[in-house]
């Protein structure tokens, strides 16, 4: 047996023994995610046990080095572990912006001390992070951000406003893009700083979405502070001062990969055709609505080809590295596809899925999800911005 197959057998045995039954229902919906953090209340004992066991094994972040709370697994082993988890329908033990975004950025740009300080609590689900990038006047044009950060000797003083900060009201810490050199050109005066939100100078105000939910906030910094160092060698700034834009961009490639891979739970879930066959019915073995059938078949072709592309890009990427500029392609295609998928699911649902309140639809669960997908092609950089990135970085078109 190859090493990888040995690993597969071991991983499977371990998962079978350690994954609680309630965590083996393959439920990946947003409402079942374990986000962790100081404010987190576990939805069940099983959810807590599962997190504890997986984090003790380092498998909440299997690819990270062991010394930082990870599993130290190779790219191939991570793939095998994910496959086995999928086969056993294990839920993900933990998801967070720390895992998706800050972790990769720290692994690349952080000092050893910063990694030791910040990564293990992320891996254990103890600290929940949020992302302070966008501002009222800095959306797509992120580098025009104005949030001010001044050097006060032993600490930094931060003043300004962020917006669209996902889960800010439920997070413990925030990674923030701030302007540390107001005189420098747009991209050069920015720093990437880590801020504890448990202080008077930081406050949040939820914003309600068209789906009726409030997953994000306005975040205000009024004389908020961060020490120069949280511990010896643990600077509050990641990477070099005034070079935060590099860190920011690198983090964005990971965010894009994550959003596209989410592709809206493409991997789990039932196919559109299957849903339609059940809900609408067949005539002579074919869906009775031929135009809808054609639309679904076309979409399933694109969805399958997209999943294969995600797989190929990961296989092509060098071990331990992301997919680079192609993350923009994946983000663009995956999110546009996910919107298309939900439009079709709503077509299938017809008037039954248009109820907003009430038991029958679990308070308009599908309709609310459909509305939520509209943000997919906005958050993490809009589709148009991704196309700009492809034109510039991959196609190298002039003036892009």
């Amino acid at each position, binding site marked *: 047996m190859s090493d990888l197959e040995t690993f597969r057998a071991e991983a499977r045995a371990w998962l079978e023994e350690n994954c609680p039954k309630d965590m083996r229902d393959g439920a990946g919906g947003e409402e079942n995610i374990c986000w962790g953090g100081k404010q987190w209340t576990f939805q069940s004992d099983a959810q807590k046990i599962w997190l504890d066991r997986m984090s003790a094994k380092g498998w909440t972040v299997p690819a990270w080095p062991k010394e930082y709370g990870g599993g130290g697994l190779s790219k191939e082993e991570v793939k095998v572990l994910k496959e086995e988890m999928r086969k056993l329908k294990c839920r993900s033990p933990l998801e967070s912006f720390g895992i998706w975004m800050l972790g990769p950025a720290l692994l690349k740009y952080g000092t050893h001390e910063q990694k030791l300080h910040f990564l293990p609590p992320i891996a254990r689900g103890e600290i929940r992070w949020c992302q302070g990038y966008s501002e009222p006047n800095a959306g797509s044009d992120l580098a025009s951000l104005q949030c001010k950060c001044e050097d006060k000797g032993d600490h930094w003083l931060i003043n300004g406003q962020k917006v669209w900060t996902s889960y800010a009201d439920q997070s413990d810490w925030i990674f923030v893009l701030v302007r540390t050199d107001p005189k420098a050109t747009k991209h050069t005066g920015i720093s990437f700083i880590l801020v504890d939100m448990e202080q008077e100078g930081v406050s949040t105000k939820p914003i309600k979405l068209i789906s009726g939910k409030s997953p994000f906030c306005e975040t205000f910094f009024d004389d908020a502070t961060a020490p120069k160092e949280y511990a010896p060698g643990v600077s509050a700034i990641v990477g070099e001062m005034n070079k935060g834009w590099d860190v920011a961009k690198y983090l964005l490639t990971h965010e894009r990969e994550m959003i596209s891979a989410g592709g809206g739970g493409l991997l789990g879930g039932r196919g559109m055709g299957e849903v339609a066959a059940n809900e609408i019915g067949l005539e002579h073995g074919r869906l009775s609505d031929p135009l809808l059938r054609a639309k679904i078949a076309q979409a399933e072709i694109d969805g399958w080809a997209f999943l294969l592309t995600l797989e*190929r890009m990961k296989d092509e990427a060098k071990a331990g590295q992301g997919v680079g500029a192609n993350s923009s392609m994946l983000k663009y295609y995956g999110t546009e596809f996910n919107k298309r998928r939900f439009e079709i699911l709503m077509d299938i649902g017809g008037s039954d899925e248009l109820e907003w309140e009430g038991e029958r639809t679990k308070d308009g669960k599908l309709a609310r999800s459909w509305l939520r997908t509209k943000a997919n092609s906005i958050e993490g950089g809009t589709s148009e911005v991704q196309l700009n990135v492809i034109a510039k970085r991959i196609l190298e078109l002039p003036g892009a």
Partner: protein
Amino acid sequence: MPLVLNEEQEMLRESARGFLDEKAPVSALRKLRDTNDETGFDRGLWKEMAEMGWAGILVEEDHGGVDFGFVGAGVLAEEMGRTLTASPFLSTSILAATALKKLGSDAQKQANLPSIAAGETLYALAVDEHRKHGPAKIAMQAEKHGNGFKLSGDKTFVADGHVADKIIVAARSAGAAGEQNGLTLFLVDAKAKGVSVERTQMVDSRNAARIKFDGVEATGDEVLGEVDGGYMALEGVLNAGRAGLAAEMSGSAQQAFEMTVNYLKERKQFGTEIGTFQALQHRAAHLYSEIELAKSAVLKALQDLDSHYGMAGPICSLAKAKAGDVAKLASQEAVQMYGGIGMTDEFDIGFYMKRIRVAQEMFGDAAFHADRLAQMRGY
């Protein structure tokens, strides 16, 4: 298996690209067309390809081939798609080689595979009888006659049928048109009595044939695979052809796209490169994404043909549908972004548009395969 080429396959790609760029660029196809060449490809070039092992890319070493598998064959098809190289590769080295390997008796293999690998004998696969693809629609009769059969019916869109030495033909030994049961495959000599071949010159400057079978006698030895049970056998062979065509179209799409992107960087209007206009940038970036999807589907189909031949139907439909649609888009966007020049015969892009139109139609267009996938998935 990782969804990437291995080292051996990468090397094959590099050497194929070098060879084709030198020996068979688009100008070679243009010349064949302008001289109204009766063969439609260069036999000398085919000989050279055979010497490099391309003709026997799928043939086992025992039979004189190099046995590089479907991924290897797809790599070659893709490269030929880039240069629009006309050759009997699809009919002989993919379709016939697959049919003989998977269905042939030992004697049939011995009699045919070595000459395929040597590039000596040319084959054609005759399936369709109507303008739209559909193996189940086959009506051509294979009547029991003594110990053998008598074949009667008309076939159309038979690629390389005009030059083939041997024809693999699907006919109905039982059942009625529309049924899957009752098909049988035959390997008949193109010179057999009752076979008449009409060469058809196609949009893409290549040739196919309409073939009439008028009471052609076939012995039991000429049956390929099982009598009456040919449908699934034929599907397997067609799947290989579909994946091969998809690979070819992926190559054509990539080439057309690269030419277009280069043009966007050169052509100036309004005092600047037209590539600076966001309207064109976004279209190019979208097309880039679509081409990446097609590449993934194609590679997976080829890999699955190698590892799970009998189960590769859905993935081959995916590859054929996706690559066909994307290649059409690539050629259409190319002509549009080239402006007036894209419409001229002097310029190569039109050749891509024409070849893609033919390749996407062969063995089922995107709608055929979307319908097939929907059926396989129970809707």
